[in-house]
């Protein structure tokens, strides 16, 4: 643990917190959901076809967003993006990784809810990047 970040804590508090963070992180990285996420992520990175499809998707996404900003047809832009996403999910590497990510997010969100409820602050909102960009 980076003791500098928690220097205001007493030594016994630092030890207990460090153990709790370590146990939490180890439990997460040992979970089946996390391992599946890592395996599918690695497979996705090695799949050249999937990478090309993802690059094409991102480019098309930018074009649609730009078009939306120009003509403001939100329904049409969303329909086109939906079509593109469906086509992307036909690639097994992308579909597997998306499913694994979803599973990992389910357990992480459950953990986040426990933390937020007990602490009284929305963990993801205060620790994550602003959703306003």
């Amino acid at each position: 643990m980076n003791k500098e970040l928690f220097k205001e804590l007493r030594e016994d508090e630092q030890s207990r917190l460090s153990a709790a963070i370590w146990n939490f992180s180890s439990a997460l990285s040992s979970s089946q959901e996390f391992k599946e996420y890592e395996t599918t992520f690695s497979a996705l990175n090695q799949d050249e076809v999937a990478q090309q499809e993802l690059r094409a998707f991102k480019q098309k996404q930018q074009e649609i967003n730009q078009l939306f900003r120009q003509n403001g047809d939100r329904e049409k832009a969303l329909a086109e993006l939906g079509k593109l996403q469906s086509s992307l999910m036909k690639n097994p590497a992308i579909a597997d990784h998306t499913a694994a990510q979803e599973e990992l997010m389910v357990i992480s969100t459950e953990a986040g809810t426990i933390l937020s409820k007990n602490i009284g602050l929305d963990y993801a909102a205060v620790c994550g990047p602003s959703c306003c960009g």
Partner: protein
Amino acid sequence: MNKYSPTGLSFITMAAKLSDELVSIANIKNFKGAQKKLNEEPGAMELLRKLSAARKELSQKQISDTFTQESLNDFYDVQKEVEKNSTINEYSQAQQEAIQFLKNVNFEISQLIGIDFSSLIKRSNTC
């Protein structure tokens, strides 16, 4: 059928243990205390509602192009009133400290797992 794998379930147990540890630490304890005090003080809560309404009104005036220096002054008056309230000040200070503490905890977790943990949590609210 359980929605988590057995190892996923053990992670949820660890989340509860981490949460117990966090609430025993001064930064979080102070924040919870300040939050309770604020909720129990109707005057302070009313001031916060007043500030929120003033902020909304100001923003609506900006949108409708009816914004004047007077509307800005009215907003500043409410803001000054809020700043003078010790319960609100204590709460804001405690909240900032608790947020910084949590960010540090999240940093540690993220370093250990190799991903920003907070990004794996689905947000209940967006802007």
